[in-house]
């Protein structure tokens, strides 16, 4: 039930953004549609709704966003350098990375962050044992622990505080 209420408020927020100068016709239609959507698919949205009540997690999310955007910009300059270079200085390979995150949302955000940061692309997830297979544009180390430290060392502690 709590999960449905959270989904209802998120849907109202997105609907307000889509029809921005608010008037009462749009808002009433939006409330009807949001009730329908929350009733149909609400129990799939989150399994642990009590996590939404901790204000600490929102602050860690605010701390995470600038780091993520900075890594994105660095990744773009890195790729532009490698593509524009006449010799193509790449050294690709698929390495294995161990993670201690367990929840679905945390793993999804970790995989998205890996894909948008310099030179890495997540290929597959093994959820039972916590392994991620990562395609790396410039392999520096094949060993599991060193690769883990190089690739996800910056994100994992913060994501653990947000989603676990």
């Amino acid at each position, binding site marked *: 039930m709590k999960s449905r209420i959270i989904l209802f408020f998120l849907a109202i927020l997105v609907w307000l953004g889509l029809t921005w100068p608010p008037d009462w016709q749009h808002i009433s239609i939006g409330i009807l549609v949001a009730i329908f959507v929350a009733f149909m698919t609400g129990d799939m949205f989150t399994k642990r709704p009590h996590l939404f009540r901790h204000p600490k997690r929102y602050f860690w999310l605010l701390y995470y966003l600038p780091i993520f955007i900075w890594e994105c910009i660095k990744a773009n300059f890195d*790729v532009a350098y490698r593509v524009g270079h006449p010799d193509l200085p790449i050294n690709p390979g698929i390495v294995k990375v161990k993670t201690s995150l367990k929840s679905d949302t945390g793993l999804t955000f970790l995989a998205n962050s890996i894909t948008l940061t310099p030179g890495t692309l997540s290929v597959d997830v093994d959820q039972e044992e916590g392994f991620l297979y990562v395609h790396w544009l410039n392999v520096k180390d094949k060993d599991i622990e060193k690769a883990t430290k190089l690739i996800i060392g910056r994100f994992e502690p913060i994501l653990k505080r947000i989603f676990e």
Partner: protein
Amino acid sequence: MIEIIGYIFIAVGLMFDFFGCLGLVRLPDVYNRLQASTKCVTLGTCSILFGLFLFKGFTASGIKALLCIVFLILTAPVSAHAIARGAHISGVKLWDKSVCDKYEEDKKEM
């Protein structure tokens, strides 16, 4: 003044789009192409949309541009991940000069 900043954002985004598509032509195999094009084209298009937000301010189309940035950042890496997994399962080999392929070894053991 704010329009000139918007133009700068759009020009930078177009430059990243161009480099991403150049990578799509130059790099040697599917996974490398996926890396270059997904990163560069996603952030380039987000930069163009942010330029549109700077032009319009908090009007209807400006807020829709911000929503579109959120959608793109959430969906583009997921589709790249799906394509990479599908390509590896359908049997596309890595480039000849690749260093290692741990995923292939683990798939054989299973």
